[in-house]
């Protein structure tokens, strides 16, 4: 009986363990090993910290790195600022009948691939694009302006891509917020802002933190949107990694960058959890 149970557990767990081990753990070990290997002057591979030193010695590398981190934090914050009112509207303001419908509307853009969505934005924003066309027609502009390939455009695209991952967890925590708490605060003399900061946000913190972790990770690791919408001037650290692997064929340098990104995201998430006094277990629920 006990044996059977154990076999059952093994049977169901095996694909997951296998998947994690073969597809995630093994390649990472390989990459980790590779990141500490360097070709010396004689063309032989040897152990070295050179790849990591390169990162610190070459300003373009660590500047991109810092830029990516700061912009990811900014994108996460902007997404939160937009997602909170949206989630509040869906859970508390609108007639419950339409709640599901609104959530589906939110989901709808995610039925097409990110590539298509980014191209959609490009059609809207480019020099000969839809928005420029209308602005010219209306006489607001004399000549078209290039709205693509700026940092702000890239942030716009990243926020747009991340919206859903912030709205859904916040909707689920706000659902559990008793309306009478809001009314009680209002009755006791609080204005809208106090209610927001004293009642709604403290209650929604677990959802906000879990949404933020997801959005931050996705943004940090995004390649498509910064590459297509950000253009040449807006380097993203993932592009540096891509360049090392594909353009320079320097897999050792690429893996070192990859691990630096992994460490960075872990540190930022850890800091975020510490600052909001949440723990991972509670947030993941």
């Amino acid at each position, binding site marked *: 009986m006990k044996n059977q149970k154990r076999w059952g557990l093994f049977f169901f767990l095996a694909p997951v363990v296998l998947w994690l081990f073969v597809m995630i753990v093994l390649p990472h070990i390989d990459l980790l090993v590779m990141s500490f290997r360097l070709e010396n002057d004689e063309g032989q591979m040897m152990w070295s910290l050179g790849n990591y030193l390169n990162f610190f010695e070459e300003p373009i590398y660590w500047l991109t790195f810092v830029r990516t981190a700061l912009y990811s934090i900014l994108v996460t914050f902007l997404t939160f600022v937009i997602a909170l009112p949206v989630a509040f509207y869906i859970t508390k303001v609108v007639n419950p009948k339409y709640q599901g419908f609104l959530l589906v509307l939110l989901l709808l853009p995610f039925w097409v691939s990110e590539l298509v969505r980014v191209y959609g934005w490009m059609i809207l924003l480019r020099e000969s694009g839809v928005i420029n066309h209308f602005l010219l027609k209306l006489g607001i502009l004399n000549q078209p302006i290039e709205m693509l390939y700026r940092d702000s455009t890239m942030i716009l695209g990243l926020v747009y891509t991340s919206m859903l991952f912030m709205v859904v967890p916040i909707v689920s925590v706000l659902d559990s917020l008793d309306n009478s708490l809001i009314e009680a605060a*209002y*009755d006791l003399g*609080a204005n809208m802002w106090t209610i927001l900061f004293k*009642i709604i946000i403290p209650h929604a913190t677990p959802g906000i933190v879990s949404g933020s972790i997801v959005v931050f990770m996705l943004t940090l690791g995004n390649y498509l949107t910064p590459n297509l919408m950000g253009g040449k001037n807006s380097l993203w650290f993932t592009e540096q990694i891509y360049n090392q692997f594909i353009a320079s064929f320097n897999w050792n340098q690429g893996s070192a960058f990859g691990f630096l990104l992994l460490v960075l995201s872990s540190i930022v998430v850890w800091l975020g959890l510490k600052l909001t006094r949440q723990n991972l277990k509670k947030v993941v629920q």
Partner: protein
Amino acid sequence: MQIDLAVKDVSKNFDDFVAVDNVSFEVADGSFFSILGPSGCGKTTLLRMIAGLTEPSAGTIEIRGKSMRGIPPNKRPVNLIFQHLALFPMMNVGENIAFGLRRRGDAKATIINKVKTILERVELTGFDDKKVDQLSGGQKQRVAIARCLVLEPAVLLLDEPLGALDLKLREQMKVELKKLQAKIGTTFVYITHDQSEALVMSDHVAVMNQGVFEQIDTPQNLYNSPDTPFVAQFVGDNNTWSGRIRQCDQKVAEIETNDGRLFRTKIQQQLQSGDEVDLFLRPEAMLIEPDADLANLNRFEVIVKDLLFDGANSRLLANPLDADTELLIALPQTHQYDYIQKNDKIEIGWDEQSGICFPRSQKMP
């Protein structure tokens, strides 16, 4: 005497549903006023309008003589205790109570002082640092009251705050609330569907049904001389007979009931012979085996169907002879009536002054 709260001709419609229909009343300073009604009668809507969480469709609400039209809840000198109390789980007891004071911008030292004083008042000294979910039901209740009282509102509104408590605690809190109100002297407006809560605690009670006030009176008057059939049935238990007036003068009518009995009863309003009437009679108005020499009694015989033992509130369930009208008769637990068994035939008598008679109404609950 100062009037703390005056509600004048207030109505509230939701689309084509009338929740509150032209209600007016006044509450004097320092009194305990209850609104009693079945669920869905519009009492919560009325309370929310006083608190400012809902705007009335018509009419005015004045608090200490000032019209509250257009004033949002956070600017009104009233506070509401919610049905489920709505204590803030993200704050401890002290922060919960200080919430309103902080919003008002009181000085820090004042806040600490006031919180301490009010916690003493509700006998929760030293509970500042407790979390809300560490409190018992009765303690939460008192924190909710303290959180409102610390703001010294002109009127404290209470929305069935005892509803969620178990019976024993509810009985205890009833008395405590009454004592607390007497001690601090704040005007209370209390809504409930539980008649015993309303009767025990209040100075005045308004009975509400389908959006209108049926009667505003002291608890004693509501019970002893209800104005409408609804009040007669809703406040306390009542036995009902349907019948027709055989003959009557200004004060007393002779009624022939549908099960063929003749009763004499006092009447409060002008009635004519031949009128269809409903006769109401309290369980305790019926005397079991009354003395033969008592005058002015309506006497008849009943068959005991069942003994409903409920301590001091015990009843007999009985049918009049040859009829299937069900009667509830108070059974005093004085051992005097211990001999009564199921299926016994006993004589019942009631004084003609204790009957309450109304013309037959169309809408009976």
